[in-house]
């Protein structure tokens, strides 16, 4: 346990450096590993192509993982509920509906924007309907999440039923959340979404002090100089932005926003000044490793399974574990 020790500028920079090195090492390993054996050196061209594709996938996984972990962390702080996650809340579902509508009716280039609108609208609904005195109770969160996800599931089914058979297949695969599709035209989109993730991480770094106080209590936060309403608005919009953008990029990937902040809390404690940079890098590392696992699994089967399948299979049991242990305490502490 590293806490409680002062969070000084020197320690902060050292932690950032440490995380960066860890991410670079994992990313490099993920670029070098895969089902195609690059060490056979058939030709420089083929090696470069393989590495290029893998680099694209690793960067995409990093951006999405970082985005989802940050969004999960922010939702958990703002709703004062440790079980909040973009996927469980239905925010990813809202983003998915927006992205599908955009790709069918308008242009795939508008998908991140529609994803953002869908995510933000869902957050507004969850917050308006389910919260009580700024806090989302665990039961209410689960119920509202189930209902909202069921609604979006039905809406997406409706849209899919009206789509052409070819679109139907691609939507179904996309809904499972997969990084394993390389599309060179997507590079500028990846760059934009990556920039967004970094920008939101910086914004959250400045909000971290306020996150800590809001978790303790709204009146406490207000009395200690936090503008709670403004913090909430900025953070909800930022979290919706990165959720929508990642869904537009790779489809809904569940539980990253739940697992990463929780593992980090166990290791580093509840201080958001540590958790924000840690979630950014650890989210990236986590999804790169998950994606690498799916790519290596491809050698067993015909095709790499979508990474969303893997995170959900890890996340489901993890969620139940949290329900059984931490949630009970969260429900008692009021």
């Amino acid at each position, binding site marked *: 346990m590293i806490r409680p020790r*002062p969070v000084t500028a020197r320690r902060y920079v050292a932690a950032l450096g440490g995380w960066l090195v860890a991410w670079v090492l994992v990313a490099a390993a993920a670029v070098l590993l895969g089902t195609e054996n690059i060490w056979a050196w058939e030709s420089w061209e083929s090696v470069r192509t393989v590495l290029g594709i893998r680099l694209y996938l690793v960067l995409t996984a990093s951006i999405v993982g970082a985005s989802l972990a940050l969004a999960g962390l922010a939702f958990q702080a703002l709703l004062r509920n440790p079980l909040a996650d973009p996927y469980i809340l239905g925010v990813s579902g809202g983003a998915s509906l927006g992205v599908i509508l955009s790709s069918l009716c308008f242009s795939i280039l508008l998908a991140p924007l529609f994803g953002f609108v869908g995510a933000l609208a869902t957050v507004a609904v969850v917050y308006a309907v389910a919260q009580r005195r700024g806090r989302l109770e665990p039961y209410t969160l689960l119920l509202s999440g189930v209902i909202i996800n069921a609604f979006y599931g039905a809406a997406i089914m409706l849209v899919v039923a009206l789509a052409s058979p070819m679109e139907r297949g691609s939507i179904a695969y996309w809904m499972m959340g997969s990084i394993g599709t390389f599309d060179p035209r997507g590079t500028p989109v990846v760059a934009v979404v990556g920039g967004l993730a970094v920008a939101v991480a910086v914004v959250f770094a400045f909000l971290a002090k306020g996150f*800590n106080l809001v978790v303790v209590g709204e*009146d*406490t936060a*207000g*009395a200690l*100089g936090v503008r709670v309403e403004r913090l909430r608005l900025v953070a909800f919009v930022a979290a919706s932005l990165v959720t929508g953008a990642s869904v537009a990029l790779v489809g809904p990937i569940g539980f990253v926003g739940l697992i990463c902040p929780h593992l980090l*809390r166990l290791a580093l404690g*509840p201080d958001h000044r540590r958790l924000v940079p840690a979630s950014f890098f650890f989210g990236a590392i986590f999804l790169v490793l998950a994606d690498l696992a799916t790519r290596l699994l491809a050698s067993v089967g015909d095709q790499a399974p979508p990474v969303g399948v893997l995170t959900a299979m890890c996340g489901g049991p993890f969620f139940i574990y949290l329900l059984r242990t931490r949630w009970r305490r969260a429900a008692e*502490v009021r």
Partner: protein
Amino acid sequence: MAKDADNAAAAGTPAPGAPAPGAGRGAPYLEVRGLGFAYRPGAAVLAGLSFDVGRGRLVNLLGPNGSGKTTLLRILVGLLVPAEGEVRLAGIALADYPRGALARRIAYVPQETASAAAFTVLETVLMGRSPHTGALGFETPADWYAAREALRLTETEAFAERSLEELSGGERQRVVIARAIAQEADLVLLDEPTAFLDIKHQHAIYGLLARLVAERGLTAVCVSHDLNLAAAYADDLVLLAAGRVAARGTPAEVLRPEVLRPVYETPLEVRTDEVTGRPYVLLRRGAV
């Protein structure tokens, strides 16, 4: 604005000479003028409420449930904006203070102390430094010194590394007061700090407040339902009834049967403690 007060607080030194009884009277530090507030139109919680608090006084707000005590406290911290009237701190209207400056002048100990995360005692007390730290919230040795000092004053050092959830109600309340001390504000507002505490811990909390007021020149405004506890420790009492001030003054001036009976609608008698000379209230069974 009133830089000297900031500096005195930052230096962490006790005010020169413990204030003599009655000191600060005639020089109001906190002025409440004609305060009106309603959560819903037509249902006024506060109506034309006025009183003063002298510097270096321990003031206790009394009043029946629903008399507007918590609302008043939240206005005094700046969490609510009054519909009418104004509050002045050190001669300057509360509304004219920037949010951060206000947080360096006024500390608040709210009723809710349950956190949604398992922060340790030290981390909790360090949060009191939040108005003093920069945008990223990095703490300097001065912040750690202030937190350690607050732990020492509240005698909570022994469990500095423990999680707040593991503590008893009385210990937790002392930690929240330690956070307010670490904030180095010169006005501390407390909302029922002794609710749910047994008499030993009630006395410990009020004793601590009285000591901080006497030794560090703090001004404290405390809400409590316990008339006798307030009478034993407070310099001044303010009795609220239906959003107005029903009576204010020293305990002997406020705790009189003819003042208390109409406000509380309860049969009671007031006696004087022969040892301290302070009044105490006896409850009687039966009709008013």
